[in-house]
């Protein structure tokens, strides 16, 4: 049976690297928005966007955090664009074991851009709002797509990463132990 076609808003951030002034306001505001409490703490190390910033090579490249991956790539690419060599993995969005980017600094749990999902929804993601130089511009377009499968939530991604790190048995043991402890404390 063919899957049903469905209208979907595709949220896009158009990145114009030539307009980037390297200020990293996108990192600042991203980490503030995703903090608990919201805006309560600031740490670009937790941001879901990262500006690859090598001024003396004239490299200014904002990259968003994408999918978590348990394993790094077998090969690595290098791009040379306009005579500038971009380090391997520069354009890659993955939260990946090969590098520190897009992981919580303490727990190393993966981070992923969620376009500042919130209730009520923001007009545009905050990184875009704070980029007064228009290096980041928000666009929406409508596409007809196949009925999409459920996307994993943040929490699911985090557990998956924990399983990759510690093994399924260990994580399920810990979860069981926490569940038991919570139940016990409720009774008491």
């Amino acid at each position: 049976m063919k899957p049903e076609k469905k209208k979907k808003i595709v949220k896009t951030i158009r990145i114009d690297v030539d307009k980037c002034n390297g200020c990293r306001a996108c990192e600042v505001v991203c980490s503030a928005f995703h903090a608990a409490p919201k805006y309560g703490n600031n740490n670009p190390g937790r941001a879901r966007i990262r500006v690859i910033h090598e001024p003396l090579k004239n490299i200014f490249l904002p990259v968003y955090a994408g999918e978590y991956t348990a394993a790094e790539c077998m090969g690595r690419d290098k791009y040379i664009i306009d005579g500038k060599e971009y380090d391997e993995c520069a354009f890659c969005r993955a939260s990946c074991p090969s590098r520190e980017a897009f992981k919580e600094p303490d727990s190393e749990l993966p981070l992923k851009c969620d376009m500042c999902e919130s209730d009520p929804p923001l007009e545009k993601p905050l990184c875009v709002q704070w980029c007064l130089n228009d290096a980041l511009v928000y666009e929406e377009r409508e596409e007809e797509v196949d009925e999409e499968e459920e996307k994993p939530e943040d929490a699911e991604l985090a557990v998956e990463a924990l399983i990759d790190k510690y093994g399924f048995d260990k994580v399920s043991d810990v979860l069981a132990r926490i569940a038991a402890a919570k139940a016990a404390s409720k009774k008491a």
Partner: protein
Amino acid sequence: MRYAETGYNLEIDLSKGSIERVPTDPKLTELHLGGLGTNARIIWDRVPPDVDPLSPDNILIFSTGLLCGTPAPGANRTIVSTISPQTLFMHFSMMGGFLAPELKYAGYDKVVIKGKSPSLVYLWINNDKVEIRDATHLHGKGALETAELIRQELGEPRAQVAAIGLAGENSVYFASIEHGRSSASRGGIGAVMGSKGLKAIAVRGTKDVHVAKPERFFELCNEVLKYIEFRAKNPIKGVPPILAGIGSPQEMAIHDEEWHTTSFAWGNARHRRKGFWTKEVEESWRRSQERAVQRLVSCYNCPMKCGAIISYPALGVSRYMMKCYSKLTYVMAAMADDLDFGFSIAGLAQEYGVDGYSTPQVMAFAVELYEAGILTDADLPGFPKDNKERFFYLLEKIVRREGIGDVLAKGVYWAAREIGKGAEAFDHNTIKRHEQIPIKLGMLNPIYFVMWATGEKANITQIEGQLPQAPFPTKELREDFVKDWIQVPTGKEERFKKFVLEWGDPGTEFPFYPPIDLICELVDWQETMHYIDDSTGICAGLSSFPLKPPYHIHNLPLIISAATGLEIDEDGLWEIARRNRTLVRAVNVRRGLRRKDEKPPEDHWKKRFPEYEAKILDEYYEYKGWNKEGIPKKETLERLELDFVAQDLVRRGILEGNGEGK
């Protein structure tokens, strides 16, 4: 929990090789905020007045501002404070860039450095892990080159580095500390770093900085951004393009330099060239700038683009970053007519790590001494004929301290006295032994007289701001300016607006206008706003310096309160700034600063009025709560909760028990 600040300083003793993480007293934040304020307190407490600036007992503080690391736009300044080898007073050179926020994220508000390392080292601060590392392999390396080598060596492309070049290693009195597109360059603080055997500081931090009232704070930050956008669309009418916007003067984006090249003095602060800016010059400078500037760049979390990446392969300069007026300082001092010269020598000077203000003036001074026969071929063997080549020659001699370069490396004031033979007369543009912006004007400007005389940073751009520098030519422009002038302090609206509205009318000519009480208020306001920025780490380019800035006395107390959880209103903030300013003065008074030092150069204005100037200074001192010698009075110190300062000054006999000074 501490908000906005981390509550910890790093204390480094390079003689012992010791590193300590020390909690700070939250009471000091209430009294001084942070940045310069708490730096001044540390220097007051720990550096006795007889300490030689280049000795191990001097302290070098790299401080974040209170708001660095929060989302407050443009809060990124590193405030470096120490005793200057050139002025012998406390100096607090500052820089933008990325270092201060990174230091906050690493978990520290300040790095306080004393002692002297037996060999060249650098400091590597990586969150909780702090190391003093060997830097002997970096000896003689350029400041930017050093930063790159350290990042590679550490395998940390995101580490932020501040480093000295050869000039700092050789304790040149105007050596800078360089950090990418920014530098802390005034007062020879790079020499102090070099005297400690410290080549660089590298920092990486991935911890949180908290704010006390998150939603409120964020809302205020958004308002600041909105106003920045508003100002981008609404330049001030009736002023030169370079003064119409916000940020530091937009000299990387704007090629129209008529105002600087025709209003400021060329050579050794000597010549006005009123007809310089011709169509041909404009065309050549535009082309030169377009070739050199690759991209406009900013500091951390700031939408402005005050800096630029400069790459000009035809000139043989490696890529570097530039900002503001350094594009012109070498060109004008060398009487060179082409901007290419500026782009090429500034790149080299930055690698050597020297101040872009003082260095060209020292070199222009040397050229004048040579032309006057005071310096000869014996002092300057093989001295080229061409002025531009002479500047390259002198730069090498100075940073290596070879021959006469060893003397010139002390700056104009000390070099003039060491050279003698009448060289003192060529020292005509220093205050407090420090080279000033080369401006030579006609009629005494009484507002600027007070600022030049009393500014503790001995640098006019760090005391002036927000006030038009000249009257608007028409009534309409004046009315247009005051109609949405929201930045004026509460209670001063009527007086300050009236001043702008009537300034330019018959009867409002310098020097006897404006009245002295208004001069005092205008100067005090301008200076106070700088002292607030110096403690918060907000860039003066978004705050105390330009006309109609996004940060001002009305929103700053709200922003600071929301960030820290302290309750500070307009009066309270003013009081803290006054306390910090007075404490800096007290440090310097204890080191000998008196009225005699507060003298703009004799020829700064052609028309001078010694008696009237003395009267203005008397009244300004009185307004500040200082005595006739410029020493803060006992009652002023006590009112500002600086009783311990009063007691010390009385004990030393600087203040008498009754509060009178000597």
